[in-house]
């Protein structure tokens, strides 16, 4: 589904990624873990066209997408739910969903909206309130729901559990599993590595802009060295 090879990227003169290789196969949940600032977010931003890519290949569904503007990448079915949720605060819940809806991908707005509301009943309840009035957890749900409006085939979630209470975090992870079951491939970037590894199939560990370790998620979770290094235990 997605192949990234030798990705180097950065902001102006400051390079932050020094060669990332990763792959996502159809139906998988891939997690990217690593220290804060190691380059996890930059990896996602490079894939979705937000960060300047210096070198490397990015292929989505067999098609090179490096250099495409973010909106065109999204329109190909690769959605990115950014860090910090980035809800459009001045819009209502439903307007946020409308902003995320892309016509021409075969499904009507009403159809997907109903699905999203079924998945997150709280959003239906508060559909007309301003997004800025929603709590952190609700905003995260809205962010995920909004990404779904683009009918993505691959969804990249950046820190979906950031700043959320454990109970909500668990809900979010359950939703992620649900999304996967419905056929969407996922990349999940998480600081909460322990849980991320529990639900993921495959994991990449990023360290200082490089891919240092990869492997089946369970194996990573159970590796004593990695446990010590990344799981804080």
């Amino acid at each position, binding site marked *: 589904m997605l192949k990234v090879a030798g990705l180097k990227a950065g902001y102006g003169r400051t390079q932050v990624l020094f060669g990332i290789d990763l792959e996502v196969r159809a139906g998988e949940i891939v997690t990217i873990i690593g220290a804060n600032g190691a380059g996890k977010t930059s990896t996602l931003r490079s894939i*979705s*066209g*937000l960060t300047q890519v210096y070198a490397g290949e990015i292929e989505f569904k067999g098609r090179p997408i490096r250099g495409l*503007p*973010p*909106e065109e990448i*999204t*329109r190909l079915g690769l*959605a*990115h739910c*950014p860090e910090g949720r*980035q809800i*459009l*605060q*001045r*819009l209502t819940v439903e*307007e946020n969903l*409308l*902003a*995320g*809806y*892309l*016509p021409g991908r075969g499904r009507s707005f009403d159809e997907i909206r109903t699905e999203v509301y079924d998945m997150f009943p709280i959003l239906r309840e508060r559909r007309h309130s301003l997004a800025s009035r929603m709590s952190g957890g609700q905003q995260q749900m809205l962010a995920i729901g*909004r*990404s779904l*409006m*683009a009918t993505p085939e691959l969804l990249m979630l950046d820190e979906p559990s950031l700043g959320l209470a454990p109970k909500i975090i668990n809900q979010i992870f359950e939703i992620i599993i649900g999304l996967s079951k419905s056929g969407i491939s996922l990349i999940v970037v998480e600081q909460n590595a322990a849980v991320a590894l529990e639900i993921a199939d495959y994991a990449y560990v990023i360290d200082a802009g490089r891919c240092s370790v990869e492997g089946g998620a369970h194996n990573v979770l159970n590796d004593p060295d990695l446990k010590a290094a990344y799981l804080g235990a």
Partner: protein
Amino acid sequence: MFDYFLQQLIFALAIGAIYGLIALGYTMVYGVMRLINFAHGEFFMLGPYVYTFIFSGLVGLGGLAPVLDSAIAIVASFVIIGLLGVAIERFAYRPLRAYGRLAPMLSALGMSIVLQSAVRVTVGPQPVHFPAIVPSTPVAALGGMVTTVQLGILAAAVLLMVGLTLFVNGTRLGIWIRAASESWTTSSLLGIRVNRAVSLVFFIGPGLGAMAGIMYASYYGIMQPTMGSVIGLKAFTAAILGGIGSIPGAMLGGFLLGAIETFGTAFLPILSGGLIGTEYRDVFAFAVLILVLLFKPAGLLGETVSEETTVAKKDY
């Protein structure tokens, strides 16, 4: 005295409606680009000229019913000036996006000079009579006199404002514009073609400006190449007063500025016992603006962004 007040209120509403329409263009462009579009007043000025050109062209070709000719000319002016706005954004502003905010502002200033001079050298500097689209008949209302033109302006402006509000709040394109105003990055991640949203804004803003220009010319009976400078600045003030970036703010600011000016003229000399004459009207308007900003630093309906949350480090 109450009749006097009502009479003045009517004047305030008519001029305020025009200010508000122009202010909308400033505020929309500012919303998506954070740009003070100094050229906006010129779209206002171009409106009646383009209208006259098309209208007389239609009449020259034999024409249809005068009402139809007018309607066609109005719509065509909107479209032509909207497209001009899009083209100007494309060539004079877009290349400067990466260069902070002063460079595009300067470019806008230059465009303003270009547009105004271009009209001046093609049709001459003199004011030209602009025949009223609606014949002006006085109507007694509210104890004062309203002309049909004033009523027409008010109706048309309110119609356009309501239309714009519905468009921006209720349609997908409108939502895209609002999304782009809030965050280009997030919008692009949602698959919104931000450049098209920007173009759309540069179509609607100048188009509305042109509509305001036609109303204005029709109201006062003249058009002239310099007519956009002063009123452009005033409308910009109105947009700031309402909170730049906010669409309802621009409308409110427009009506408010109209009211401040009108009532300033009407009541300053009376209330100050002749001490402060009408020539201080603009001082009064600016003083009100400064006062408002002292208490509401982001205008009446603008969002107060606390400095801690402002991510943009370099303002200028």
